């Protein structure tokens, strides 16, 4: 039944009065640091346990260790139950738990109906408190990770491959370069003893942050804290901050793959993070230029709507893994180093350089001229409500609260943004563009089945005119003349070609 707004307000007061720990529906921090997000009328309980470890902590030569460790805990046996028994016990509860391992974070997530809390709690917490490190589970999890690289990433989705190749290229030589799943040789070198030692080093109480949300009973936070004391002791040293090498000019990697169309990802590291006012200013500009999976994206309008070249074109100022498979930003992929990134979805190889030029031209225009007042106001209006969809469920809000902790944000990132939006000025946004965006120094990754053609077009800087199957308006054709001859200024020595089978090998 629908509750009236007055009813909701009364409930809020009641929750504050009775709960005493945290305002209803809003995350806050308990004295011991536990993140609490009580939602009294939510019939479910959400958990998020964050360990401050990720693929950046993989020892050299053991790339994939963090990923396999996280997944072995979430998808393996415990001291009390085999994995098969765990699945059987979770099944009637319709509850699952899982893990996300990213560069800097490992988060265990679970959700259950409050009716089933007791049964679920034991299974969920055992996963990271009492892992069995079963050799057979280890082989399965490692094999899945190897397959994720050797077959899925390399061969099943050129778009995800393009993004991974871009990150690898930008962060070469740093702990951020390899995919979170690791590398083929790194995974093959792992042993169960490596996993056990990694767990003991990083999955400690001092290295964890607990987060609870939904309609949980009032004693659950304390109970969880007590349970967690069974974790190994110790506080590992923080991983060194990844510093991508400065980029001088435009560098290109062509990932050569027989039969592939072209998928492009390009950009450069930026020195601004969520929580800073400049970040929010830059967010407005980026949303206008390339809001993910949205026809309001300017790049989308130029490349897809006006020219019908591909399925979509977007830009980012934060990591956005699995972009091809999600509509809204993922949580718990927080990073100390972010990139500005443009993503051009799959298109024919002979149109790749034109699309690259079109996107570069739009970026150049944005950097040189800034946003217009009209676009600024429209984007501000859009974002004010659009971000409401980023965290509609308790679980999503809880994960955002964990990310807020990562970035040291006081309050809520999304709520703060909505508060800051009306106070932002066009001048601030344009200043943030000038400070953080540029178009001269960047790394470009292209997956392609015709590396020879693209290499030749790039290094010769020859015109790449577009041919259309349908009639186009005169202004589009006029613009095409400028796009097709936009100077690329890419030196032949700055173009490397890598066969796909060598990607993420070691």
């Amino acid at each position, binding site marked *: *039944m*629908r509750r009236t707004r007055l009813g*909701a307000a009364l409930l809020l007061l009641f929750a504050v009065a009775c709960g005493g720990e945290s305002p209803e529906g809003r995350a806050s921090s308990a004295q011991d640091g536990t993140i609490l997000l009580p939602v009294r009328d939510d019939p*479910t309980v959400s958990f998020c346990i964050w360990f401050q470890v990720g693929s950046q902590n993989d020892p050299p030569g053991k790339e994939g260790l963090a990923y396999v460790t996280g997944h072995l805990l979430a998808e393996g046996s415990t001291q009390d139950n085999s994995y098969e028994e765990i*699945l059987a016990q979770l*099944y*009637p*509860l*319709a*509850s699952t738990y899982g893990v996300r391992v990213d560069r800097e974070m490992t988060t265990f997530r679970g*959700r*259950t*109906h409050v009716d089933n809390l007791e049964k679920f709690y034991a299974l969920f917490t055992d996963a990271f408190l009492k892992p069995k490190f079963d050799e*057979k589970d280890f082989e*399965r999890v490692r*094999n*899945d990770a190897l*397959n*994720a690289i*050797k*077959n*899925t*990433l390399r*061969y*099943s*989705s*050129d778009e995800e491959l393009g993004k991974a190749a871009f990150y690898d290229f930008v962060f070469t030589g740093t702990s951020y370069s390899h995919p979170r*799943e690791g590398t083929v040789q790194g995974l093959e070198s792992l042993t169960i003893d490596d996993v056990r030692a990694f767990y003991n080093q990083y999955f400690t109480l001092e290295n964890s942050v607990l987060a609870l949300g939904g309609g949980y009973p009032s004693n659950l936070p304390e109970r969880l804290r007590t349970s967690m004391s069974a974790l190994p002791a110790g506080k590992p040293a923080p991983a060194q901050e990844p510093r991508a090498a400065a980029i001088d000019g435009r560098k290109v990697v062509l990932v050569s793959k*027989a*039969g592939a*169309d072209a998928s492009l990802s390009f950009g450069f590291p930026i020195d601004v993070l969520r929580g800073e006012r400049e970040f929010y200013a830059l967010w407005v500009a980026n949303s206008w230029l390339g809001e993910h999976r949205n*026809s*309001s994206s300017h790049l989308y309008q130029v490349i897809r709507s006006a*020219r*019908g*070249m*591909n*399925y979509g074109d977007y830009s980012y100022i934060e990591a956005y893994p*699995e972009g*091809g498979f999600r*509509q809204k930003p993922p949580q718990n992929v927080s990073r100390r180093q972010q990139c500005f990134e443009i993503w051009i979805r*799959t*298109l024919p190889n002979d149109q790749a350089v034109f699309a690259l030029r079109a996107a570069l031209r739009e970026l150049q225009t944005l950097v040189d001229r800034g946003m217009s007042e009209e676009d600024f106001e*429209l*984007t501000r*209006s*859009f974002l*004010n*409500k659009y971000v*409401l*969809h980023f965290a*509609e*469920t308790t679980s999503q809000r809880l994960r955002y609260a964990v990310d807020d902790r990562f970035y040291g944000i006081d309050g809520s990132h999304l709520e703060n943004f909505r508060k800051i939006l009306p106070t932002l000025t066009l001048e601030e946004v344009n200043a943030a563009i000038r400070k953080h965006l540029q178009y001269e120094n960047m790394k470009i990754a292209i997956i392609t*089945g015709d590396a020879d053609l693209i290499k030749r077009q790039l290094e010769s800087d020859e015109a790449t005119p577009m041919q*259309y*199957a*349908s*009639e*186009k*308006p005169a202004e589009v054709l006029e613009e095409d003349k400028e796009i097709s001859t936009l100077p690329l200024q890419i030196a032949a020595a700055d173009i490397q070609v890598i066969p796909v089978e060598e990607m993420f090998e070691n």
Partner: protein
Amino acid sequence: MLGHPTVRSRTTARRPCRWLVVSMTLCVLIGATTSAIAQKIFPYETHVETLDNGLKTMLIPMNSGGLVAYWTIVRTGARDEYEPGHTGFAHFFEHMMFRGSEKYPREVREKLVTEMGADANAFTSDDLTAYYLNIASEDLEQVIELESDRFKNLKYPEAEFKTEAGAVYGEYRKNRMNPFFRVYEAVHQEAFDVHTYGHTAMGYVEDIKAMPEMFEYSQSFFSRYYRPENVVVVVIGDIDVGRTRKNLQEHYGDWARGYTPPQVPVEPKQTKEKRIDVPYEGQSLPIVWISYKMDAFDPNNLELMSADVFAQLAFGETSDIHKKLVLEEQVVEFIQGEVNMNRDPGLMDIIARVKEPQRVDYVVQEIDRTIAHFKENLPDAQRLADLKSNVRYDFLMGLDTPMNVARRLYRVIAVTGGIEAVDHMYRSYDKVSAQDVQNAARKYFVDEQRTIAILRPGEGGES
């Protein structure tokens, strides 16, 4: 559980995810077994009305923090593409619906939708095309105005039509390297001799390439299928029912009737097993995909509901075959079984990704052994009870936002044309016994009713 087959996979997923976001309505209803909720499983008030022109509206008020999900479900999908050379057209037409009208040309419409910060999109599958906007409740009236306008008055120039055809080809391009898409496409083509389920919602590549030349056909398509009798508007969230109903009547009431049903051919009964090898030029682990012919969805068909229960018991995550092949022998990366909810007789799919190419035959044998076992033995009573508990809690946990409610309802609404099927299904599922599961295994899972497709990498194919 019940749903729609897969055409793509996540980078690290152990299971393929779905071609579209799939309604879990049927499966979640299975578990609601207590008699207290036997008559009504869905917890929210539902206000259903049919306007004089045949348009059905469903209003579902719920406390949602000011959010509203506005869905327009057109009961037309790839199934309706019965005319040769026009496969993929329902999906293409979905793209055209974003190209504007005289009153709200594309740029104007996009600006209005952008201003309201709507999460707006659409998708097409075999039996339906769905358009949705997830909005703040204060924007509902404007959305009713915009949506009713484009469904009544869509207008686009030929040049824009041709341009959009390029974007559709781009969508095909991004999918075509996915091995699950390949085998999904191939198994449907093989399984159906004449029915339109033989092609995917993307359509055949040669038809996609020819789309720019079908401008006139597109107008005929709109005129025949985008009519009120063929559409359901669903509004969920913080809404005033009386006001919303009045608004819908005002804006949609003058939409002219004129639906012309498609002449979908009737698939003859399959009489012998079909086997195909699916070529794939990339690198992939082999995929085994076995599809059995099923009945059309009918919430009162106890045998079909029992087949779905069988699919979970036999091939789900707690099944014996999962334990043996995934966990113990580690021969397959995953295995799953699923009955699809379709308007016409469709398929039940068993899908496994095999880790070693030489073990493909063994995996098929194990699948056969599993089916034979269920034909000879009644399922374990505890597992049947666990399954019913699973779907009950899955249902209860999945209705937390207007969009999630819509995702659970849209397919049953599209396939049946109403929401009553929810309760009817529940009553049927409530009756499923161990004996019914065995009967379903015996009835549906026979060799002459199936198509076996094996994708093996490195055997060339389309470029």
